């Protein structure tokens, strides 16, 4: 999700919340008659008159179609994006453009990161963060490894990528998750060997 979409979602949520609270307070005051002294019987005559005007159907149709289009666009924004798999390198110039197939870098990075003793599982993909590509490698660590070993392994791959793209066009991030849970771990409480 882009930051703009997250901000829109938050603003929409705040507006929705304020409308709900305002509607609730209005209903309460209607019954309790403490602040606004609303009439006990609802009269919406002016609204009924408006929807009988000649221009109303045309305005309702245009507004309705616009609302449907806006809503659909908003929904589509939440779907996973089909990203451009290529990144333009800063070494491009007037004489030619250098474009990089970023998923192949992610695959190669994941392959280089994988190690039976430290990070037995790894895969890579390309994300867009603040408008630029980020190669993100996601791995699971081995149960017996050290954080220092993981850091060494990640530094090795980061060094390779940095040497390949010294201008910093392609930042690399490594995320490490827990080892897969073994069935026997879930079945009984942890018991260590006693010597």
């Amino acid at each position: 999700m882009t930051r703009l979409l997250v901000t829109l979602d938050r603003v929409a949520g705040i507006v929705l919340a304020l409308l709900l609270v305002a509607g609730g307070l209005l209903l309460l005051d209607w019954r309790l008659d403490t602040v606004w002294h609303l009439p006990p019987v609802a009269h919406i005559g002016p609204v009924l008159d408006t929807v009988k005007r000649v221009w109303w159907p045309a305005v309702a149709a245009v507004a309705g179609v616009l609302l449907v289009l806006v809503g659909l666009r908003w929904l589509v924004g939440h779907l996973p994006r089909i990203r451009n798999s290529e990144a333009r390198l800063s070494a491009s110039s007037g004489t030619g453009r250098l474009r990089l197939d970023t998923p192949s870098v992610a695959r190669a990075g994941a392959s280089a990161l994988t190690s039976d003793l430290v990070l037995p599982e790894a895969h890579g993909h390309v994300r867009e963060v603040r408008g630029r590509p980020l190669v993100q490698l996601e791995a699971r660590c081995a149960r017996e490894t050290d954080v220092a070993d993981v850091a060494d392994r990640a530094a090795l791959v980061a060094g390779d990528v940095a040497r390949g793209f010294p201008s910093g066009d392609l930042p690399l991030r490594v995320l490490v998750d827990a080892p897969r849970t073994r069935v026997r771990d879930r079945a009984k409480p942890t018991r260590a060997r006693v010597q």
Partner: protein
Amino acid sequence: MSTSTTSSGTPGRPALPGPRALPAAAWLGPLVALVIIAAGVVLVQEALARWGVVTTSWLGSLLTGIDGMRAGTWVVPAGVVLVLVGLLVLLVALKPRRRTHVHVDGEADLWITPTALTALARDAAEGVPGVARVSVTGSRSAVKVRAAAERPEDVADAVQEAVASRLAGADVRVSVRTTRYRPEGAQL
């Protein structure tokens, strides 16, 4: 120990933000979008009804139902529910995105989950001779290890050292507590 929120960037480029979970407000957007679409459909249906394409106007029926309505006893619980739901939605909308990983010092932009740190700490503590039972809890700021041994005073330093060395480099506090191990069914 401090917890980093951004990664070190390439010189001349801003640092990237640390990994975070999807915001709780992420479902509010689609919900509001669906409400907007529903409102649009009602308006289009209203126009079609006024033009005589369809017979019944949904909006007209709704407005006619509201006109002349009295403030019955149902209004108070409905108002309370609306206010509570509104406050809940407000909390969700304002809730910040949760950080999911702990930063690891080093040359790479490396982040590790608290669950992974917990698993590594558990394995380290279990490997200390004399430790009979281990329980570990972890968060983004601390990993707490509880190790039970028949002679806890003998294993305390070894467990502390094993766990600290296993997690060295991760921006978390490590605390180890050892207790006396009492086998199940033993007399207390």
